[in-house]
């Protein structure tokens, strides 16, 4: 499965960047979300995956009795997911405002700040 997950991650990275490279504001956000998912899955995969063994200590035991998945990457991803959520919400609103104020859908037309002034 690792190989499939690796391909999925590759697809998410590729799609994320591809969408960011479009000129449309909405596509930019979607690209950001896809890229974020890709990065999270990468942590997940590289922290090594285990099937059917959540890192939860059984009810009547103080330690794990059998194999368990590495909990640390999961905690990291949780943190990353929540942070990405904050960033994405902000991005969505930023784009909405930018669209309203700058009055363009086209990122290519948002280059006034790079021009000499």
């Amino acid at each position, binding site marked *: 499965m690792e190989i*499939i997950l690796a391909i999925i991650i590759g697809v998410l990275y590729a799609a994320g960047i591809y969408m960011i490279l479009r000129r*449309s504001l909405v596509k930019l956000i979607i690209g950001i979300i896809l890229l974020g998912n890709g990065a999270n899955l990468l942590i997940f995969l590289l922290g090594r995956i285990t099937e059917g063994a959540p890192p939860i200590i059984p009810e009547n035991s103080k330690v794990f009795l059998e194999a368990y998945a590495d909990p640390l990457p999961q905690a990291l991803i949780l943190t990353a997911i929540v942070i990405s959520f904050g960033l994405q919400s902000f991005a969505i609103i930023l784009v909405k405002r930018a669209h309203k104020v700058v009055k363009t859908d086209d990122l290519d037309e948002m280059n006034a700040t790079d021009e000499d002034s």
Partner: protein
Amino acid sequence: MLAAILLGFLFAILLVFTGKFFRGKLAVLSAIIPGALFAYFASFIPEIASGEIISRTYQWVPAFGVDLSFKLDGLSLLFSLMITGIGFLVFAYTASYLKGHKYLDRFYGYLSLFMAAMLGLVLSDNIISLFVFWELTSISSFFLIGFNNSNPASRKSALTALGITGFGGFFLLAGALLLGNITGTFTISEMLGMKEAIAGSEYYILAVLFIFVAAFTKSAQFPFHFWLPGAMKAPTPVSTYLHSATMVKAGIYLLMRFTPILGDQEFWNTSLIIVGGITMVYSAIHALFRTDLKGVLAYSTISALGILVFLIGLGTKGAFLAAAVFIIVHALYKATLFLVTGIIDHQTGTRDVTRLGGLRKIMMPVAIAGILAAISSAGIPPSIGFLGKELTYEASAHAETFTVIIVIAIVLTKILLLWAGFVAGIKPFVGKLPEAHKDVKAPGFLMWGPAIILAVLGILFGIFPKLIESALVKPVVLALGADASDYHLALWHGFNTVLLLSGITIAVGILLYFFVKPSIKLENRIGKLEFISPKSILEKGTHYFGVFSAFWTNVFQNGYLRNYVTTIVLFLVVLVSYILFGTAGVTIDYSKLSQVTAYELVVAIILIAGVFYTVFTKSRLAAVAAMGVVGLAICLIFVFYSAPDLAMTQFSIDTLTVILFVLVLYRLPKYLSLSDYKMRIRDGILSVSLGAIICLLALQVLAEPTNSEISDFYAENAYKMAHGKNVVNVILVDFRGADTLIEISVLAIAAIGVFGLLKLRLKSTDRSQ
């Protein structure tokens, strides 16, 4: 000695706060400072003449080996006296010249700053602190040259001067550090003993080149000379001070200071002779084509500096002697001529020599000063100029190679300089007084006094050379590493070739003066050749450099976000694939990977289908819905691989994101497809390469052995020590609780940001505040 240097700085700072006080009649009082300093340095003459060297060292930044160590030997004494002596006269002169000027206090501030920096420069025995003062002279001269800063030309020449001398400054720093690197010390007097080591070092040429660039830029040597005529935009006291005795001589000082360390090498000598030679001839010729008095003086100054460089390059005892004398000669007559020019300009309002004449009738004392200075400049006996010229010819005639060319060059230069001296010192005073100048008033004593003093000194030292011989000249030669104790300065050395050359020079020079009058026609004629001058080449260069800068900047900072992203991703792809494919080689160890199962495959397929649909659909809403499909697939992946917490969070957050999208979606732009086909292909290739690289990288990493030390610790202690069984949650709230605390702060900030973005509407008056 530190106090002596700091005095100028302190005075400058004082002026910031007490400026009003010195703006009025009391301005002349500020001359007390250079005057006192002159007296202070003059008191060292006997000691220095007897061969002593006075040193003082103050700790500053020992961590860098940078001290404020000062050394007063013959060379620095001569310069100190010129700096303070001429400084004294210029300070006094200014009080009258800029009388009532709104910013007189500032002017004195810059002058004092400059004087102090100059003193520090010539007294420093630490090459880094020398550099510090060197830069301070550049920056204070920037302010002096740009004093009339409302005039664009003035600003431009200040910028040019700072640009050129600043440019040279960096080379001085590089040279200093290189020398420090070779010798292990920044103290100049310690370097003296390491002459051989330096010359033998593989970095010798480089070090010398660095020092040369510094000296040549500061002392206006070809092809860096053109900032100097431009600097004539400054008020005349500035020109007097900077260009006769001080700033432009800093480069000369530097070369002299390093002669005993770097000199006596073929590269050193030949380069100096060539550069000095070209400079003196080139600019002496140029002087011929000027009508502005200050222009004439500027070019003759450059030429004189060329002579000095040339003499240092000759490197013989005689040459050093000639250089030492010529420094004094030049300081005296050039300062006089500048002062005189300043008076003329101040009284008549013009410096155009073609429109000047007969002024002796109005300002006799000035005329006397001018004529005496011209005589000295022409090297006519009994002026000290004659002495200087004789010594120069003597040294040239003893040059080891290309003697004839050298002699012709120096004689030609001297002839032209005679012309220049006469034009500046005599021409305005003789002949008929133009109608326009009938009502010109005579200048006050504060103006002509300093000129007369300097002019008279020029004659006095010529008649009584003993006055300066052992006091000033010989200690300089000693400081340059030669012993001239057996030599005696005198006007008369009997009939010889040198005297013959002198005669020819004076005769031809005077003839030239009578036959070639300065004229606009001449000036325009040379103007046509301006396009090949270093100045215009540099200006063109600067222009194209600006064009290039704009081009380079706009290539990268082109305003298109997608290009920025492309560059970054391309950079990543290229670097990573270089290592991945170039040095490592990709191998995938399938044995370490687990089996692919059917339902996993299906999850993968729906995820990829969702992604592709998101990317290629033309509807925003469908794209958002497809993101939901992707989110569900990821959630299922988390479930399949034992991460229920993640699955829950991922799904909740996905749903919230969908809600967010939906709430703003109809305010968002349409899901446009703006890129053309070619761009899509290009971006597609780039994105796919990134995806492929990440995929391969992941597989490579998976083939590496794992280390579960940390997760084992968590598993072991989650319940026993942290009282929890959901290890993920225990990590989040306990083992790595700090992460979580920050993370919720991130959320709170995002919420505040959203709130502000949507609710804050600035009134139009508050825009951009």
